[in-house]
Every structure is written in C-alpha cells, then in structure tokens.
C-alpha cells in the first residue's frame, strides 16, 4: 500500500504485457495526436498563419498576377489557378511538419520519448495524424476562399471528394519528408533553407503555368514534378481547365497523383522510423 502523496517506491517494470504492443502503439499515437492538437488550441495564431498565408497567395495570384495569365486552348485562368494553389498549400505543410519535429528534438522532448518504453512509430504517427488534421482545416478554409473569389468546381460531388482526397494524399506523403528532414537536421537555420526552397520547387511545376511554355528541359522536369500530377489531376476532377500536354506523365495525371505520393511514403516513412531509432547514435 502506498501513501497518496508518495513520490513512489520503485515500481518500474509495472508495465503492460508485451502482447498488447500494437494496442499501445495506437494508444500512444492517439495521446500524442491529442498533444499536438492541444497546441493548436493554445496557439491559435499559428493555425491562423498557416491558413492566412495561402489565402494571401490566392488573393495575389487572382487579383494581381492573374489578369495577364492565359490558359492555352482557352479557359479562365482563375479556374486553373486554384487547384494549383491548393497543391502549393500541401507543399507548405512540409516545412510546418519539419519545424514541429526540430523543436521537439531541440527541447529534449524527443530524447525523453526515446528513453521511454514507447513504440517508436507512435511519436511519428502521432505527428502525422495531427498534421493531417491541421491540413484538412487549412484546405477546407482555402476551398471556401476559392469559392468566394469565383472558383467554380463542376465535376460533381464524387469527383470533388476524390480531388480533395488526392490533395490530402500528397500532404500525407510530404509530411513524411518533413519528419525525415526534421530528424536529420540540428538547427532551425536548416528549416529556413527548406522553407525557401519550397518556392522554386513549387514554381518548377505545372502549378501556375503550363510546362509547355518553359524551355524544353525545364518543362520536362516540371511535368515530372509530383506536384504537377496532383494539380493536373485535381483540375480534371474539379472540372477546371488545365494545360494538357503530350507526354505520358501529362496524359495520366490521376494515376500519377496516386503513384507519386505512395512512392514518397514508401521511401520516407521507413527512413523516418530508422532515423528516429538511430538518432545521434
């Protein structure tokens, strides 16, 4: 019997049986998802920033740059623009994930988790789940802003849901890249570098202009950019005008918008788990 305010006589090892490992991995992941979501409630400004920046981009592209842009083969540029901006927003999530991972590592919280009898996957899955919630909120807000500035999806409800699913699938893939890079780097300076590189990576694609208008080699690279497939696929599903293109990858946007994220997850999720286990070893 222990007194209520007892700091505790040694009782290490009083832990659940090995058999319930999977259940505990899921419980741990859920506990950590709850932690990250509690952060959102305590820091609403951060979420507002994550939503506000892409909204600003929508307004800039729609009202400042969009007037000069033309869609090859005709069509309203704004209708083609919004799916590109939705995709770009999924890309920005990469550095958001990375910031959270680097912050935990720097504060010693990651080390504490690693010294505890927890499933290694739980920390990463918890992070991933919370970031997906944040991204879904952000994307929802952005869809509404799109509608407010005159974007009109016309592909029907099923295609609409499929398009949103493809955007979130891309986000899910990129967050594993963010987790991996966050575990790899040691300084916040590296996060700034990644944030800066997101822009050229986003522009070297079919998000905002047709790759056909780019120099030959650059255009080919842009067509094979995974972001281009997601943007082209969502344009098709939303019933918005797109750039088209003769290359194989441009002809199969929906297929590639599924394949690319799966390839990225297949590479970066195991890398992340390995890195988490072997961190600073």
């Amino acid at each position, binding site marked *: 019997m222990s007194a209520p305010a*007892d700091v*505790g006589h*040694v009782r*290490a090892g009083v832990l659940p049986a090995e058999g319930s490992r999977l259940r505990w991995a899921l419980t741990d992941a859920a506990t950590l998802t709850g932690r990250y979501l509690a952060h959102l409630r305590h820091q609403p400004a951060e979420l507002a920033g994550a939503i506000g920046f892409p909204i600003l981009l929508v307004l800039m592209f729609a009202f400042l740059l969009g007037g000069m842009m033309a869609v090859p083969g005709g069509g309203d540029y704004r209708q083609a623009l919004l799916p590109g901006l939705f995709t770009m927003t999924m890309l920005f999530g990469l550095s958001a994930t990375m910031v959270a991972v680097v912050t935990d590592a720097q504060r010693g919280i990651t080390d504490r988790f690693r010294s505890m009898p*927890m499933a290694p996957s739980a920390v990463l899955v918890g992070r991933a789940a919370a970031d997906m919630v944040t991204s879904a909120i952000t994307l929802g807000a952005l869809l509404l802003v799109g509608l407010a500035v005159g974007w009109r999806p016309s592909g029907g409800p099923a295609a609409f849901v499929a398009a949103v699913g493809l955007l979130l699938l891309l986000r899910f893939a990129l967050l594993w890249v963010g987790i991996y890079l966050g575990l790899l780097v040691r300084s916040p300076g590296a996060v700034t570098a990644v944030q800066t590189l997101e822009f050229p990576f986003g522009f070297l694609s079919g998000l905002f202009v047709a790759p056909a208008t780019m120099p030959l080699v650059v255009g080919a690279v842009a067509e094979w950019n995974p972001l281009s497939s997601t943007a082209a696929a969502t344009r098709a599903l939303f019933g918005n005008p797109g750039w088209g293109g003769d290359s194989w990858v441009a002809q199969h946007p929906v297929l590639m918008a599924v394949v690319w994220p799966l390839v990225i997850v297949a590479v970066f999720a195991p890398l992340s788990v390995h890195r988490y286990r072997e961190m*600073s*070893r």
Partner: protein
Amino acid sequence: MTPAVTAEAIRKRYPGSGALALDGFDLSVPPGTVHGLLGPNGAGKTTAIRILTTLLRADSGRATIAGFDVGTQAAHVRRQIGLVGQYAAVDEILDGRRNLVMFGRLFHLSPAGARSRADELLERFGLTGAAGRSVGRYSGGMRRRLDLAVSMILAPAVLFLDEPTTGLDPRGRAEVWDAVRALVAGGTTVLLTTQYLDEADQLADRISVLAHMGEVGGRVIAEGTPDELRSRVGGDRIDLVVHHPADLPAAAGLVRRVTGSEPEVDAATRRVAAPVGDRMAALAAMVHGLREEGIDAEDLTVRRPTLDEVFLQLTGAPTVEVAA
C-alpha cells in the same frame, strides 16, 4: 545484489570526430545510492548518460541497468529508467498538469490513473498552485521540478540526471536537491552528472571523477566517497584568524607547536593555517593555548580540504567551474 548500473570499458567516438569521447569508461553503482559523475565540459559525462539510457550506442564495452544490457535489451532497460536531460524536456505550451497526464498516459497508466498520479506528483513537488499554468511561464526551478516529476511517474529503478541544476539560481538548485533526496528515500538509484563540486558533495554517496588526460579520451580518473577523495590530498587543515595583527607571531608559534609543521601566515587576512594530523587533539590544544597566551581569536576551524582542492590535485587543472 545486482548493481543498479554497470559499465565496463565503454568506448565511444562520434563520427567525424578525432578524439574518443569515452575511452575505457567503467562504473558500478549499487542499488539505492546516489552516484555523481563529476568532470569539466567535454569530459564525456553526457555521452556516458546517453549510452546508459539507450539513446546512443557504444562502439565497444558493455553496460547494464538492473541487469539488462543497454545494447541488446534496450526495451527492458527503458522500463527501468527515468531521464532528466540538460534541458527541461517538458511541453512548454501545455500546462503542468496536462504534461503529467500526457506522460502518464505514455507510461501506459489508465486515464484515471494518470490524472490521480499527476495530482499526487504536483502536490509532492509543490506545483499544485501552478498546475493550470502554461509551462512556458514557469521559473527555471519549477520547470526542473516538473521535469523530475515526469521522470518519477513510474518511480523508476534508476534515475539519470544530466546536470540537473545548470542554469538555476541558488533557490532553484536547493529545490531540485530536495526533490532528488526525496526520490532516493523511496529507493530509487540516482546517477547524476554535474560540474559543480558542491552539488556532488551535497547529493552523492560516491563520486567518479571523469576527465580527458592528455591524448587519452574521457575516463574515470578517481572514484570514491567524497571523504575518500578528500583524504587523497592529505588530511585536515587548521585555520586560525586573529583579531589583532600584533598577535600573528605568537599565533604562528602556537600553531607550529600544536601541529608540528611550519604554518602559512597571511598578514592581510590575519590568518594562520597548517595541516593537522589528529583533528580533535589539535583543536583542544589550540583552544587551551589561545587562552594561555591571551591571543584574541576571531575564528578557529579545523576543516577538510574542499573538493575543489581534490580536483586540482587530480587533474592539475584549476577548479572545475573555471576549467569549464
């Protein structure tokens, strides 16, 4: 009885670094004791802690926690240990109570169990009043206490404290020391690193002095109780401070007769000091002699050498704080 912590001939070189961080590190800590790892920055203290807590893999050598091998039985080791690193590893955004409940859940307490354990620990560590406040607004000492409370959720068999009071003010340090003493009273074994000699003196039953010596990487250069380490630099010293500078020659003569060795005389501080063999006899003779000769003494002490003096002797370096 199985030692709580053992390490045998641990070697570790960080990739890309020339020197060995640890070069033949040995340690054995009996259960229920506090062991201090003392040494300057870069001596390998944190490396040793990271290896023992399964965060870092040793290049060679063997280490166990409660009989479990840190390399091959890491999962078992993690069930035995608590770790308080150099940074208070608690969630800055959440409040104190939510931190404890969250970590309690991660230690697989039931939701109700995690909540009641959180309240117990808040009470025990004097944080009940701050339970609902975001940890970002805690003082350094409060944050450390919360950190300790988190590591005590399961009352681990072995608790690792890596420089637990670095950066704290004297009051914060005293708070942490009290908390550590309470944990030890519950049966927890503590392995503590510090660069503060007085901290090792206050808390540790035994001390390992860790240092880089010349070409050799970090290893234990001396081990023992604080008293044993002190006796390495000779015995006690007698210190006499007189009121009137005119009494200094007579005082020096008295100390010479009592101790049988030539005293050091410092006119500026009116101090006479000399090493002494039998401390009690010397003290009695000094009191008697002072009265006999009518010397007005301001202060008379027989003291052990400080750990600063020990460290100086062992490493040839100045005090640890200065070396760091």
